[in-house]
């Protein structure tokens, strides 16, 4: 291996006046052309590590810094972030906060303009990078009109136009759907292959295993460093560090195999070689379907903002009382639009939506809140009050709850989400996972029959995701009907009882979770990516929902 492009030596940092070291005596390096993954639970110090490596701390975020950071053997400490542009490129999670221009070409040029690059070279580099990142057809588009995946690729491309030797990415895939995630990962992989050094922070272990090397962080320190097959081989160790173990690793661990296959195909090969035979589909006693009455009925709903680009194209569905339903689809498939018609936020152009047989527009959006509770994707889009109590009480007061009953209702809602005793806390100092739970509590307090959650697990680490989903399972068992929208087939497989697959504004598949996950063609038609255990199961003609089911089939 060649020399280290980036090296951190005994680096520690504490933000502002904080006593706590966000990272503590870290030694870290990335070699020329190496692709390094950085993983760990929320708050483990991954972002701080990236910030230190790129000079953002202590230059931009002030605090106590010690140690040495070198890029290309030259210390960068003391250099302004702008001076390091062109040497270190950084891409962040929030793509909206990385785009400054009103069209793609100008966006790509922006950094080069700042560095006073000659116009002819600018055009050359823009064309080259746009080709490489797949933006060539979009040059004159407004960033606002691009999809999330395209925006993030634009952010990456505009950084690459500065020719950085080192590329650092802080959770760039979190807000993207699976196809866009894979696309971005492929690009990063290629970049590393062509000599760039890449550091990538992510929770996403299934994708992380493609990295040359993985660094695992915990409480501000690096606790493991090495190949994915070594570091993530023990499922329990992964869970302890807030990560989902790669499913093939877990499977092989359950089967008592030493190998740690990086792909489903590789796993199949090893299993065949070792003589494993899958037994016929094990008889599963799935949780019985609720034989409830129809709660939400959607009849042939069409919706568009402009007639030439329909968002919903004749959707019909029925959600039964007490069910746990998942609307599965890519970003832009119409999921979020669909649920907005449930509450009469959006009025279908044609078709109707009923709640218990009553047309929802007759009830009206404000009143519907007591029947259908909405938790939107970003909890920051609803939290505002001075403390948790006021936040939860807001909905109750809107619905005219007598003041003396409010404390008890608030306490009950907070208890249900596991935030009891937090009444006096400022919601804005809570971590994202807790803010998400608080959002659920706010909605729950109004005692709706249905809870609808838009991407409830986005941006949460493994433990937080499990917490959130267990919370929903619990609420479901107490009688709430649960509807979640997600593009994660894994979440649907693990928790949903019934799945609707949406693609281009149409429902292209509906059935019990097991029925749906057995149809791999259906998932791929909707551009969804089934979790590895499901894909491997399909290869053996099995319809499995989890690693443990699959392992059982092989025993």
């Amino acid at each position, binding site marked *: 291996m060649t020399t280290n492009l980036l090296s951190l030596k005994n680096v520690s940092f504490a933000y*502002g006046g904080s006593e706590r070291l966000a990272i503590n005596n870290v030694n870290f390096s990335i070699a020329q052309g190496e692709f390094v993954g950085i993983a760990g639970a929320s708050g483990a110090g991954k972002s701080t590590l990236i910030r230190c490596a790129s000079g953002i701390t202590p230059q931009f975020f002030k605090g106590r810094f010690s140690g040495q950071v070198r890029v290309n053997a030259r210390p960068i400490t003391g250099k302004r972030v702008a001076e390091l542009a062109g040497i270190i490129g950084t891409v962040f999670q929030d793509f909206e906060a990385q785009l400054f221009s009103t069209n793609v070409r100008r966006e790509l040029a922006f950094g080069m303009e700042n560095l006073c690059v000659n116009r002819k070279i600018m055009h050359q580099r823009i064309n080259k990078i746009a080709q490489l990142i797949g933006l060539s057809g979009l040059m004159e588009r407004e960033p606002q009109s691009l999809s999330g995946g395209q925006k993030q690729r634009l952010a990456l491309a505009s950084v690459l136009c500065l020719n950085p030797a080192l590329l650092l990415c802080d959770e760039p895939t979190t807000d993207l759907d699976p196809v866009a995630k894979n696309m971005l990962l492929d690009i990063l992989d290629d970049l590393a292959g062509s000599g760039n050094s890449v550091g990538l922070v992510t929770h996403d272990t299934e994708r992380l295993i493609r990295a040359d090397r993985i660094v695992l962080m915990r409480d501000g320190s690096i606790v493991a460093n090495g190949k994915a097959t070594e570091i993530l081989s023990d499922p329990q160790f992964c869970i302890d560090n807030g990560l989902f173990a790669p499913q093939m690793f877990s499977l092989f661990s359950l089967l008592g195999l030493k190998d740690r296959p990086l792909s489903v195909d590789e796993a199949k090969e090893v299993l065949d070689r070792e003589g494993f035979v899958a037994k016929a589909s094990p008889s599963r006693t799935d949780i019985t379907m609720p034989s409830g009455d129809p709660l939400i009925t959607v009849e042939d709903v069409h919706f568009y903002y402009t007639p030439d680009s329909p968002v919903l194209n004749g959707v019909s569905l029925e959600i039964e009382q007490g069910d746990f339903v998942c609307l599965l689809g890519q970003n832009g498939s119409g999921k979020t639009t669909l649920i907005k018609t449930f509450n009469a936020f959006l009025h279908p152009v044609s078709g109707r939506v009923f709640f218990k047989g009553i047309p929802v527009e007759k009830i009206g959006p404000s009143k519907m809140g007591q029947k259908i509770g909405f938790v939107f994707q970003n909890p920051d889009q609803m939290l*505002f*009050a*001075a403390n948790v109590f006021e936040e939860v009480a807001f909905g109750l007061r809107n619905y005219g709850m007598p003041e003396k009953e409010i404390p008890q209702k608030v306490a009950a809602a907070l208890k249900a989400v596991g935030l009891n005793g937090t009444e006096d806390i*400022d919601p*804005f*100092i809570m971590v994202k996972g807790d803010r998400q739970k608080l959002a659920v509590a706010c909605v729950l307090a109004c005692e709706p029959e249905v809870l609808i959650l838009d991407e409830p697990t986005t941006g949460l680490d493994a433990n937080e995701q499990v917490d959130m989903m267990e919370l929903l399972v619990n609420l479901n068992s107490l009688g709430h009907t649960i509807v979640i929208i997600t593009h994660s087939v894994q979440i649907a497989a693990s928790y949903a009882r019934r799945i609707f697959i949406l693609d281009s504004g149409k429902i292209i598949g509906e059935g019990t979770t097991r029925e749906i996950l057995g149809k791999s063609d259906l998932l791929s038609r909707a551009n969804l990516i089934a979790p590895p255990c499901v894909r491997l199961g399909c290869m053996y003609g099995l319809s499995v929902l989890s690693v443990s089911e699959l392992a059982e089939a092989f025993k």
Partner: protein
Amino acid sequence: MRELFSMWQNTRMIVLTAISASAYVAVLLPFKGFVIIPGLTEVRPGAAIPIVLSFLFGPAAAWGTGFGNIIADALGGMLGPGSFFGFIGNFFYGYLPYALWRTFMGDNNPVQSGMKGWLLFGIILITSCLVIGSIIGWGVDLLRLVPFGALGPIIAVNNFIASAAISTVLLALLYGRVHMWGLLYFQILGERNAKSMPFVRKAARIGAILCIAGAFIAFIAGTMISCKSLGAGYGTAAFASDAKGTMAVAGGMAPGLLLILLGAILL
């Protein structure tokens, strides 16, 4: 007022300027609040935003409010000669609140400063609303486009109702949090050493008084002159015609406006 120019060295302040402008427009344009005469008299909740932003982001709010007005004009197709006065008026609307407050109260929290604080806050609200009404109303009257007597008071009163209704509530919910995130303007720009010098502080106090006095003088003069000519339009026939009335507004308000300008420079 030096910070109005030195802030452009700071990337965070530049970003906060853009955020202030966009937030102002995004709340001002779509949310109509309480409509009295559509298109003319609407008490829009967005009118309270610059006051709040000013206490939080100081000079970035001043520029942001001015830019926000340009954007609102451009998005509404109203980019005209009035936009110039719209920019100046809004700039002062975003500049005066923090500048007046810090002159007397330093870095104190605007919603936790006792009786004296509330009194000053009230004076600041009234002054800022009179100033934005005076400047924009004066400008369009000078161009003889809209009479001051109609526009000046409407702007001042509408902005005052909106800010009085929610600016304190918003500040109570935001000030502490922005402080926690280290994004208050004096946290970003660092200690203001110059302000500790006695003669600078004295000058700022004189400036504050000039601004407050100028606001009242300009506004009252403008309204009186303009509405006297209003009386003439009613009922009875015939007084002197032509544009003398409007030039009288322009001239009569000039001393007050000059006081505001002078005061703002000293702040």
